[in-house]
């Protein structure tokens, strides 16, 4: 670990095939210009890690954390495990099929240094929708926090527990999270799917952690990639079940403990 690095990118990889490799290469191209200013930590099974090391596509300074085969499809578990190995003050959970702004670290550093009390910086995403390999459309995400109609009396750009009660469309992939706070709060909850990032934000704000929006499009997020775990999960859930997961998140944030909800 370089002493002066401010943040670590946590890269969970849950499968290994030609498609994954293609996406991973794109992510690594976006990471490469800033690789000397940050850490990269890959979390996956020993088999996948071994294959990646053989291919030699990851930067030399990459660190690896092995997770169990059973945990490979739990993004939350992979991140929680990886965070326990992070030595930098901040980390950024990413997805291998996403892309970073080429100056992600430089921009992130500017905002971190503006207010070191902030526990989570939430940048604006560019969500890219794919249809059989073709980009169908793109849209901004995490941006409504900049609108007065959402924030009302609160200062725009700042998340509060109150605002989050009525606004759940927030994605923490590509967000800058303070390592110590994440560990103190108990990390992501693993006992429920889909809304664990939203629940984390509710929990953080409930515990007086500062969550602020970062007004830059720093992260390109691939939505509903065919064959992805998330896509497969959504296909199995009904609208009612999805609604229940959000309702559940709104009840569970009072507890640090990862409790069963079923």
């Amino acid at each position, binding site marked *: 670990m370089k002493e002066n690095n401010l943040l670590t990118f946590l890269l969970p990889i849950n499968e290994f095939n030609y498609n994954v490799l293609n996406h991973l290469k794109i992510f690594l191209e976006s990471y490469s210009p800033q690789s000397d200013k940050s850490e990269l930590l890959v979390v996956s099974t020993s088999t996948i890690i071994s294959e990646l090391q053989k291919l030699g596509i990851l930067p030399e300074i990459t660190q690896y954390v092995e997770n169990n085969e059973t945990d490979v499809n739990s993004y939350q578990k992979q991140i929680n495990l990886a965070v326990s190995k992070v030595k930098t003050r901040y980390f950024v959970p990413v997805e291998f099929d996403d892309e970073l*702004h080429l100056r992600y670290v430089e921009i992130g550093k500017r*905002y971190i240094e503006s207010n070191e009390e902030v526990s989570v910086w939430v940048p604006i995403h560019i969500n890219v929708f794919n249809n059989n390999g073709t980009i169908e459309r793109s*849209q901004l995400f995490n941006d409504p926090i900049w609108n007065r109609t959402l924030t009302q009396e609160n200062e725009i750009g700042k998340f509060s527990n109150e605002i989050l009660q009525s606004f759940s469309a927030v994605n923490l992939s590509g967000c800058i999270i303070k390592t110590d706070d994440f560990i103190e709060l108990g990390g992501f909850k693993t006992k429920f799917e889909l809304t664990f990032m939203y629940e984390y934000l509710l929990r953080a704000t409930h515990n007086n952690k500062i969550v602020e929006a970062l007004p830059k499009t720093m992260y390109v997020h691939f939505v509903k990639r065919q064959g992805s775990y998330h896509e497969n999960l959504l296909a199995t859930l009904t609208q009612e079940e999805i609604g229940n997961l959000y309702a559940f998140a709104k009840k569970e944030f009072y507890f640090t403990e990862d409790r069963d909800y079923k």
Partner: protein
Amino acid sequence: MSNIRLVENVKKTISELKENNQKFIFIVPNATLVSAEVQEIYRNAYTLHKNGFKVHMLLETKDDEKPFYVDSEMLELPHTSMDKSNLMIDPQDFLIIPEVLTNVMERVKSLPCTKVLFLASIDYALHSLIPGVNFRDFDINSVIVNNKNVETTARSIFGEYNFYEYRVGIPEYFSTKNLKRPVISFVSRNSNDITKVVKSFYLKYPHFRSFMFEDLSNLSRKQFAEKLKKNFAAVWIDRISSFGTFPLECMKSGVIPIGVVPEIYQDYIRDNSGFWCNNTFDLPDQIAKALSLYLEDVPMTELYDTMNEIQSEYTEEASEKSIIDLYKNLVSNKLVLIENYLNNIEKETNEQNEGK
């Protein structure tokens, strides 16, 4: 009046001028909305006051109501309402009258003092004059402007006057703040213009629907400065401005000006000093361009360098010096005129006496 009496009075006026005993009386128009011209009038007056000149503010309002948006220290200057004032106006005094107050010019034209036109807007000047009437019909021969281009245009319309130019200065409390919000400020004379632009913007660029516009009208100048610096860009629509200070205030605050080029050319409007267009309907595209560059954090080094270079030419210090010089020139030119007049009277008197 006998020549002896006249000579005495003229000598007294000369003496008062030489001892800096003249008053500069500024007439303040009753502007219900924030007026940049009124702010400039106060700045001129306050600068003189700080430098030992006698200054008085005459308010057009009947109830002594001072403009709320002017800096508080400037409102400490002596004020009276025109209708209630029993202020003595002497021949050595100067009455500074804004172009909109032709009714006041008519009332004061026979006063023995020097009347000076404060010309901030050629548009307003033409609006205020009835056809065929010029400012010299009100015994006005001197005009204060804040820009060479305004002088050129004024000279071409109103003819030859004694033009006095001062340099605008942007107060130090306009300062920059490092991290700006993705919010666009706006200032416009006409609220319909802004509504038109904002609605067009959201229709053309629906993916930017989360980003807001913030109206900065009806604020004191200090409150305005405080809000302006928080946002990354500001829209300005003012076609009739003779020399709008808003873009300069933006530049000093590190805020990108986005605007329609006004009718009178301003030298601060150039490539890389902001996002400029000639048509209000093109503004949404300029706003979208600026917002995209901001969100993507594209370095706009040339833009910010140019803005910084331009605003550094409009410092308070340079402005105050130019204001003092202007009014000193007014005094010294008046002195020359009166001394020549005195010489002529004395010569005439001597000739008369010799003739006897």
